[in-house]
């Protein structure tokens, strides 16, 4: 793409591109650099089996982080998504075990995901209740509801055809990794080039200006949450089908891991800035770090502390960078 603009504007654009590109480039370097560094310490880390396990086991986090990034870019937050993924996985698995056509079981997760998130979007956007209150409430409704309905029982005897995660496209590309890449690319293109995609940035960046441009803020927020629900549904399917059983719990604080991926991926917590490419790279990086800890003989119990430091450092860096740009 060539830009024929005034020199000043071009410099400005270039500087902005550089700032935006830096987070993704930095993450890509970190992903590769970490792999090499840990590989030198313990070559077994670089075994194809381990690397693909890391990707396979965490692709669902990257998929969920795509939706979370949209939510955060629009200036909101969602802490209910971890619990929702557990609920959707259970719904889908229960349907499959009870003889519903597999496609119906899959679709149910997507549809219920969209409905629950869209409902939250409506409460947030039209009834103007802060996202943190709505999603905190929903988190406990979903979490408590799931355990009291299932009684903590695992779902077993799932039909073989249910396991989406087993599919290998062209015999080499596992479906979870394919879906992660596809979701990221589609979402990135849509957010970059379509009017409704740009509206997310507009609403998150400056709600008043967006309104004056004729963008409906409530409608955009409901749309963002509905899409977030769709990605949560897809993530739930990957999560549900990667093991032979579905536990009625998800990893504790799953929502934190997903938020960490978004924020470390360069999505600004002040809204209006970020890309889903960054969040997917960050999800991979976080998964890689968790695996690397084991290979450098550090107890995996430290993983959440590492996540906490990562998110803290990124957030502070983001704010300081913005302040410098505003001051320059």
């Amino acid at each position, binding site marked *: 793409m060539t830009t024929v603009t005034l020199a000043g504007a071009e410099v400005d654009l270039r500087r902005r591109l550089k700032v935006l590109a830096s987070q993704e480039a930095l993450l890509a370097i970190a992903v590769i650099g970490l792999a090499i560094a840990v590989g030198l310490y313990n070559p077994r880390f670089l075994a194809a089996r381990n690397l693909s396990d890391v990707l396979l086991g965490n692709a669902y986090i990257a998929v969920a982080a795509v939706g979370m990034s949209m939510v955060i870019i629009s200036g909101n937050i969602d802490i209910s998504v971890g619990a929702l993924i557990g609920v959707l996985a259970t719904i889908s698995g229960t349907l499959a075990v009870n003889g519903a056509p597999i496609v119906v079981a899959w679709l149910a997760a997507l549809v219920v995901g969209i409905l629950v998130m869209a409902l939250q979007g409506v409460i947030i956007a039209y009834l103007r209740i802060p996202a943190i209150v709505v999603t905190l409430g929903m988190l406990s409704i979903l979490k408590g509801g799931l355990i009291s309905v299932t009684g903590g029982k695992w779902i077993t005897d799932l039909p073989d055809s249910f396991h989406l995660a087993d599919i290998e496209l062209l015999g080499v590309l596992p479906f979870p990794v394919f879906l992660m890449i596809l979701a990221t690319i589609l979402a990135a293109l849509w957010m970059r080039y379509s009017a409704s995609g740009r509206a997310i940035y507009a609403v998150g960046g400056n709600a008043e200006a967006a309104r004056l441009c004729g963008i409906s803020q409530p409608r955009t927020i409901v749309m963002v949450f509905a899409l977030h629900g769709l990605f949560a549904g897809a993530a739930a399917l990957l999560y549900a089908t990667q093991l032979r059983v579905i536990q009625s719990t998800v990893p504790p604080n799953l929502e934190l891991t997903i938020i960490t991926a978004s924020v470390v991926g360069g999505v600004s917590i002040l809204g209006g800035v970020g890309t889903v490419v960054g969040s997917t790279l960050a999800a991979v990086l976080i998964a890689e770090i968790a695996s690397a800890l084991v290979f450098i003989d550090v107890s995996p119990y430290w993983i*959440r502390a590492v996540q906490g430091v990562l998110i803290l450092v990124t957030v502070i860096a983001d704010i300081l960078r913005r302040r410098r740009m505003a001051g320059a």
Partner: protein
Amino acid sequence: MSEIPLPHSAKRVVPWWLLRHETMLALILLVALIVLGYLNNRFLTLDNLLNQGRLTTEVGLIALPMTFIIITGGIDLSVGSIVGLCAILLGYSWKVFGFPLPLAICFSLLVGAAAGFLNGIVITRVKVPPLIMTIATLALYRGLAEGISQARSVRGYPEWFYFIGQDNLFGVPAQLWLLLISIVVAAIVLDRTTFGRTLYAIGNNETAARFSGLPVDRVKLIIYTLSGFMAGLSACVLVSRVTTTRSDMGMGYELDVIAAVVLGGTSIFGGVGTIWGTVVGLAMIQLLKNGLALTGVKGDATIVVIGTVLILSTLVASSLQRRREGV
């Protein structure tokens, strides 16, 4: 619900104090008490009510500074993780560092205050929004608790340590005195001191408060530090009550605490709220839990109820506020 404004004469049919959030909540609480007491005869006994007071202390101690924070328009999601971190460090410093227990208690309180101070300093100096800062430290503090403890628990504390968590003083659970004193102090500070009024000023209009020469940043730093300190205190009471330390202690406390504060009429948008409201909110949530448990509802289902109550009470409060403002 119709949006048509009432004629002026009809507006003051009900006395204003009856329409106050706290009054309405207290009435609902009363009705709930009677209904639950009617459904189960073990509910309305002095023993049971005092025991519920014992159980609510840990959340209650944190809800007081949380009221301050939400009044300023902030939030602190890291309190549950601070409880976990302080509990772990209490046990760890006693068992592994060999601190005498009183010193270990002081150490864990200090760590709680330091954790809150870190929240406060980044929120005021770097201007990270409180929501994001405390989500980050929610992960960090819990991670430290897990990393330090390596999922091992510490037990076997000396007998005297269990006094605060398990014994009675003048016929009332010992920790309830701690909560009662804290409530009175917090209420006086919020209602009768410059510091307390500054909190409302910040919540109503932070810029105006700043231009009025109020020490906005210092006040914020103090309340976040206080929040961490009280979470540390809550951790000590909790460990004393359950006699063991584990890294998952205090998980989910943020929900109970915020639900109690918001249910008590403190506006999540800042500027509005009272300690008395929070106390009624606390009582409401604890009695709801207990009442449901006694009528045979399982623990997991009660958090469904708390989540619903949180969303609904915010909805009602914000629609009442909008009507009052005549929007």
